[in-house]
């Protein structure tokens, strides 16, 4: 009888690391594919070279968690088959295509844990494609991993906990933070009172950051709308509405984001069933509390399954690995699994309160300017999308894509699909959950056409 193929873990952020450690401890040797050059994911991303800053300077209050994750993963050594700088671009019938250094590898797997993470969610605003505009996550990566600021005088705009966190990190790094423009009204912030008993340390730390920004003279404006970024070939100012008046602030960098969105393409290729999630306003792969998906042998963990943050990702990664062990008939710690589920349920309650305190400004969708680019890749404006929706009586996302090319470009809808769904829903007066979702297509990220070498690592032909 042929030996069983190893489990495959996609992603080496907090969820992937904890999953890998759990499987390795049970004697399995998982393959871990990671687009990053080193483990940590985006939240605990490691620099390409040492730059004189320690973990405290780089990761702030989360330095201890970052150090532990990096150390624990490094300690696994040969107990995991770790592949950094590796892109998973296709999944089918127990075979994964992964690309590393221009060489494609066909990897057979038995058990799949997807820990694919998230990116910033955005709604288009005029000028958001100008040089000098980055996502909140992108602005944070520039600072954390590359030690660069995205401007000398930066405005932070949008919603979500990252808005204040990254603004504060820039201020601490000595960059002038011209303003923090928050889409949410003051009334939304009252939800922080709900979050306070669940995680007093997190809430109080956030409030201290806001206070510090205020003390430093940063304008913190709540309930902004009609954002517009202006400049010729780069950012020179941001314009917004607040209190019935138009305001403008000169700046040379803008960090913008509206919470996060899950990276679900791999789950789609793996055949997972999806369901609309009202809180995240997105179709997400179905997942049990254990991390099991709708497909036997496929498990989901971390922000790639549903936005819950890094602490939840660690717990979910370990929990999913325990489910894999159980399904494989191996010993697993059931009490630990139950404790992890309790922890995840508690974090979920906190997340609900945070999402309410930093809500996605869905009402902006009706006001997206016609001249704002909706699709960055194919340069399709919101106005063009609206006309196509009307002319072709479109009601579903894949039809919108077919007619307009929205979501057909290099990013495959990562930056525009959530916004296009909001726009389609408003335009057709349907619920956001009723307009469908873009189907994922392999390759899920661009790969070179000249991938000539292919290494077949499968232990036997799966005979399909």
């Amino acid at each position, binding site marked *: 009888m042929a030996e069983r193929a190893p489990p495959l873990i996609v992603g080496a952020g907090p969820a992937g690391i904890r999953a890998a450690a759990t499987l390795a401890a049970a004697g399995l040797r998982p393959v871990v594919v990671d687009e990053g*050059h080193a483990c940590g994911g985006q939240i605990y991303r490691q620099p390409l070279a040492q730059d004189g800053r320690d973990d405290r300077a780089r990761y702030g209050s989360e330095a201890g968690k970052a150090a532990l994750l990096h150390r624990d993963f490094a300690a696994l050594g040969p107990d995991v088959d770790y592949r950094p700088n590796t892109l998973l671009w296709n999944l089918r019938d127990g075979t994964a295509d992964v690309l590393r250094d221009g060489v494609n590898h066909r990897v057979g797997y038995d058990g799949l844990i997807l820990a694919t993470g998230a*990116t910033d969610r955005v709604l288009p605003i005029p000028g958001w*494609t100008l040089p000098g505009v*980055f*996502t909140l996550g*992108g602005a944070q990566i520039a600072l954390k991993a590359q030690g*660069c*600021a995205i401007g000398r005088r930066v405005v932070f705009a949008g919603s979500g906990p990252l808005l204040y966190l990254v603004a504060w990190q820039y201020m601490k790094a000595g960059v002038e933070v011209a303003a923090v423009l928050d889409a949410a009204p003051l009334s939304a912030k009252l939800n922080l009172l709900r979050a306070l008993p669940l995680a007093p340390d997190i809430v109080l730390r956030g409030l201290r950051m806001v206070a510090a920004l205020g003390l430093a003279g940063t304008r913190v404006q709540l309930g902004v709308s009609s954002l517009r970024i202006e400049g010729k070939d780069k950012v020179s100012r941001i314009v917004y509405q607040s209190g019935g008046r138009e305001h403008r602030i000169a700046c040379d960098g803008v960090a913008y984001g509206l919470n996060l969105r899950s990276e679900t393409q791999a789950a789609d290729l793996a055949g997972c069933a999806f369901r609309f999630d009202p809180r995240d306003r997105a179709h997400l792969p179905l997942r049990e509390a254990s991390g099991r998906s709708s497909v036997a042998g496929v498990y989901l963990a971390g922000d790639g399954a549903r936005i819950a943050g890094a602490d939840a990702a660690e717990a979910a990664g370990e929990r999913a690995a325990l489910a894999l062990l159980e399904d494989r008939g191996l010993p697993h710690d059931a009490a630990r699994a139950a404790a992890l589920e309790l922890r995840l349920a508690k974090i979920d309650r906190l997340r609900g309160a945070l999402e309410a305190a930093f809500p996605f400004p869905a009402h902006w969708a009706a006001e997206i300017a016609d001249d704002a680019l909706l699709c960055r890749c194919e340069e399709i404006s919101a106005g063009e999308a609206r006309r196509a929706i009307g002319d072709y009586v479109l009601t579903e996302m894949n039809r919108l894509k077919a007619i307009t090319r929205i979501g057909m470009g290099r*990013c495959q809808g*990562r930056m525009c699909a959530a916004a296009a769904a909001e726009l389609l829903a408003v335009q057709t007066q349907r619920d956001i959950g009723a307009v469908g979702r873009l189907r994922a297509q392999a390759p899920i990220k661009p790969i070179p056409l000249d991938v000539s070498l292919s290494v077949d690592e499968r232990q036997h032909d799966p005979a399909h």
Partner: protein
Amino acid sequence: MPLLHRLVRQDSAVVPFTIDGVPCNGRAGDTVLTAVLCHVEQLRETEFSGAARAGFCQMGACQDCWVQLAAGERLRACTTELAEGMHIVTQRGLRHG
């Protein structure tokens, strides 16, 4: 004016490369995105309108930061480490092929 401003690694080892034929110095540990945007304001011009772009997500998702090497190879600037001798092309008119 560069788009990005370096706060650390000011004295790291120099990595020479060129932007549109102009010799530049990056620093060890730079991504291509960092190295280019510490000198100039754009990474590329779009295929349709020719608008300047300089990346967006910096985590390999948005695909907005693809640049071309003079020899024709394309690479994603935010996830590629700068290497000595790269000849990076950011303007359409200078692109080969």
